[in-house]
């Protein structure tokens, strides 16, 4: 009896990787999944933070896909290694700070290391020619295979017929005729295949899973790098870019203003590391001051904090200001008029 061939599939939680893995399983291949956690994933964090999202039924889509397929899923923490991809992408960025091509090469390379360590035969992705403007083009798919070192061990079952045969096809244990020839941005072939397999409740396909593709998020990350004078970040930095209003009145500091109860609760965990403010005479948001504000800045920040409190129309609002040393003082301030907050302050 011949040993069952083994493939690891990159599982994002979306439809394409679900189908790609399923197509391989149809040919009797043993499939396990890998999911990468970069810190920029939309899923998970934002659902946990915002109250309106906490009330929704929540699931990790990659785990949901694994359950649908009946396969193991290995979730890899690549936060530290991924920084170099975000900061120095060899192939550049997409329309925002999304290094999609470098990201795909990096992840396929990590999968290649994984299959070498675990004795698997090939890597599977849900890529489709022409699906994405940066990373899934006819000219970039070979770049991913080559620069990741996966070469002909990288199988794209959804568009395989549009590509040269891979090693599993050449070795005869993967039937090319049973693979697919999808191309372009249309989702209809994937939806038809999903219906064929009886998948219904899958996550909305294609995109939206990484904050780096989001324009506003990229603006905030670029601002963080510009004001710190260096292109670096820690996990906490990129987490805090996901929450609150970010208001920068000056280059030396910005305010992070909680927008609702869930965000305020999340930001509470960061209080001790920042000068922070909380209105006490009226209900209002927790505000973190990121940077090195001077006394004039503290006064202005307190007025902005008051502007986002229930006392925004009051003559005076009491704002408690707490330093990084834990010492607090109360400031009575006139709320900053909303119409006078320059639009350029909002990141």
């Amino acid at each position, binding site marked *: 009896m011949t040993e069952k061939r083994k493939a690891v599939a990159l599982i994002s939680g979306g439809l394409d990787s679900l189908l790609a893995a399923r197509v391989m399983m149809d040919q009797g291949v043993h499939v396990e999944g890998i999911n990468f956690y970069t810190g920029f994933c939309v899923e*998970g964090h934002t659902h*946990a933070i915002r109250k309106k999202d906490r009330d929704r039924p929540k699931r990790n889509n990659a785990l949901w896909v694994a*359950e649908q397929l009946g*396969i*193991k*899923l290995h979730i890899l923490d690549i936060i530290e290694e991924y920084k170099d991809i975000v900061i120095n992408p060899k192939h550049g960025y997409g329309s925002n700070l999304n290094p999609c091509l470098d990201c795909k090469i990096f992840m396929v390379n990590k999968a290649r290391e994984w299959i070498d360590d675990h004795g698997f035969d090939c890597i599977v992705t849900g890529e489709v020619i022409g699906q994405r403007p940066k990373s899934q083009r006819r000219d970039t798919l070979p770049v991913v295979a080559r620069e990741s070192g996966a070469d002909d061990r990288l199988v794209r079952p959804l568009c395989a017929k549009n590509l040269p045969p891979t090693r599993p096809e050449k070795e005869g244990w993967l039937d090319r005729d049973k693979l697919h020839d999808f191309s372009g941005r249309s989702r209809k072939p994937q939806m038809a295949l999903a219906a064929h397999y009886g998948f219904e409740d899958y996550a909305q396909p294609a995109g939206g899973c990484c904050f780096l593709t989001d324009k506003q998020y990229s603006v905030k990350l670029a601002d963080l790098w510009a004001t710190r004078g260096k292109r670096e970040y820690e996990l906490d930095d990129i987490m805090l870019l996901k929450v609150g209003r970010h208001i920068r009145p000056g280059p030396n500091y910005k305010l992070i203003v909680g927008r609702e109860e869930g965000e305020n609760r999340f930001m509470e*965990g960061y209080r001790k590391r920042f000068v922070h403010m909380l209105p006490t005479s009226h209900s209002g948001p927790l505000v973190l001051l990121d940077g090195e504000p001077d006394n004039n800045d503290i006064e202005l920040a307190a007025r902005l904090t008051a502007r986002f409190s229930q006392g925004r129309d009051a003559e005076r609002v009491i704002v408690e200001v707490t330093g990084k040393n834990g010492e607090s003082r109360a400031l009575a301030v006139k709320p900053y008029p909303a119409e006078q907050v320059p639009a350029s302050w909002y990141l």
Partner: protein
Amino acid sequence: MKSVDARCLLCPLPVIRTQDAVASLQAGDSLEVLCTDPGAIHDIPAWCRVHGHEVCDINEQEDTITITIRVGSP
């Protein structure tokens, strides 16, 4: 019983910490995971199901969720 402190971490980090801890355990061993992200109540049992581990107990007290797992066979 081995314990993992994943408090103040947001999913999927509690799942990853659980996965890393289970890797060093034997079938039949138990693991206690402490977390605060309510998402872990869904995600850790889902991860256990796909890997064949058993969730023995989920206990919520104030803000801390304690999930007890018995490791299954590889």
